[in-house]
């Protein structure tokens, strides 16, 4: 089943069409057809400590550590019985030059009594989503124009009479120029 030179050229042409067409239509960049230059760039949508980061918590302090040039955050909170509200512990900021549609994905929910939620507040338009931390889910935060940011707040309800514990959760902030619903990232 050897292919002739014309057949091979046709296949290569098809693949080139796919790559150029896909990339251009996705609107990320314009590329020259002759060569492709791949460079690491600063993420346009980054995580930053909120203004309550580092302040006194119910026990200890509100811990927010940012790594990976603003692409990863580790948050430690210490809520107590009844309702505990944390205002602006993390900022999702668009430092880019175009708008992105942003979503939050609860990938690793917590399973404990009570109700736990993340409140997402666009500082320009107001509350944009309430993400339930006790179940998997994807929540659209809408479009985030350049220069704007979304504040992450957290609300916990721990019923009286329950045993206090420590739990962890992982969430993803997904952003894209398109307005489709994101899926979990590989390994997420």
């Amino acid at each position, binding site marked *: 089943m050897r292919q*002739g030179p014309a057949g091979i050229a046709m296949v290569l042409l*098809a693949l080139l069409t796919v790559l150029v067409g896909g990339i251009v239509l996705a609107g990320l960049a314009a590329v020259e057809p002759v060569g492709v230059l791949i460079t690491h760039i600063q993420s346009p949508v980054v995580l930053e400590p909120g203004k*309550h980061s580092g*302040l006194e*918590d119910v026990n200890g302090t509100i811990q927010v550590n940012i790594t990976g040039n603003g692409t*990863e955050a580790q948050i430690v909170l210490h809520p107590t019985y009844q309702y505990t509200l944390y205002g602006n512990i993390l900022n999702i900021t668009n430092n880019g030059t175009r708008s992105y549609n942003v979503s939050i994905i609860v990938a690793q929910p917590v399973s404990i009594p009570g109700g736990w939620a993340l409140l997402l507040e666009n500082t320009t338009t107001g509350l944009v989503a309430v993400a339930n931390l006790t179940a998997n889910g994807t929540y659209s935060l809408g479009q985030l124009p350049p220069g704007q940011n979304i504040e992450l707040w957290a609300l916990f309800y721990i019923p009286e009479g329950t045993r206090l514990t420590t739990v*962890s*959760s992982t969430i993803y902030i997904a952003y*894209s120029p398109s307005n489709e619903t994101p899926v979990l990232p590989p390994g997420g």
Partner: protein
Amino acid sequence: MRNKLVKIIAALTAILLTSYMLSASIFTYDTTHLTIIESTPPLWFELPTSTADVALGPNSTSATINITLSGTAELLQNPDFYYDADPWRYAANNASLYAYWLSSDTGSSGGVVVIYGDITSSGTYYAVLLQNFTVPFPTNTLNMSIRYMVESVPILSLNYLIYGIDEWNGTAWVNIYNSYTSLGRTSAYTDYNVTLNLPATLQPGVTYRFWFGVYSYVYFYITRSLDFRADWAMLLLTSGYYAFAGEAVRINDTKTVYARLYVYNFTSNASKLNATIYLDNETSRTTSITVINGNLTQSSTSWIRLDPPPNPLYVSGKIIVLANDTVTGESIVLRGFLQYSSGGYAVYYPVTITIRS
């Protein structure tokens, strides 16, 4: 033929892959790891020393308070020193006198406060216990009841039970009433009941101070101590009104916070019932939640600082309720939160207050 087949497959592949990439969006992901360490509450409720019927939640982070207005209102908090001496304060004219609290004493109804001193010279000695109070409605008559025992008095001395009322005029305390009765050594706790006919009418909204204690004039120093013990001191207001004035619940904490009380739901079948509810930290108080003629007119207090108490005999703060009605059968229910915060968090404890006449 083979070349034609290759061309067709290549074209189809191009169409399929192009459409896939057109429909598949490119997402970028930032990751947040959240660790939640549930923590023991730094603030909790405690039962009051008043007649309010209070049920606390299993972790003392919620309170259901039932208050029944009575024709007789006790104006003082912790009048019987049952659990401690809070919020009574102590003052004396001589450092050889001091006061301490005992959880019980022979013949007492519970805790007692002892004023004690080893007298070492002739002269005048006096020491008093003081407490601020307010009145739920105007009055110029109060019934005072003091139960005391004199364990010991100095030899060659005259001794008196002294009591009085001061008014805070905004800058200083001004005495508006004082009196006394002779004291001798007693072998058991003794009741002293008297009606105070005040020269001026006490007004709601004004802060007054009640004080009582012991006065000793020692003619000639020989020896022996002064030992005066108070089992209770009550200041009762009796009238045609139905009233309550005192602690609704006590608040204690292990760290300094700022707190307020606010109402989010209010129900009423009352048209004559008035209530004033505020937070008190011993040295200051908030503005009040107010109910006038059965209507909620102010739904939140101002903020107040609550510090850990200086010792276990005291608490950080209290919810104080003053209420009155001229008829029976009325009730109001206030559902709200005690909100406290410090730094970057805010905690909300449910509080329900029901007042019935």
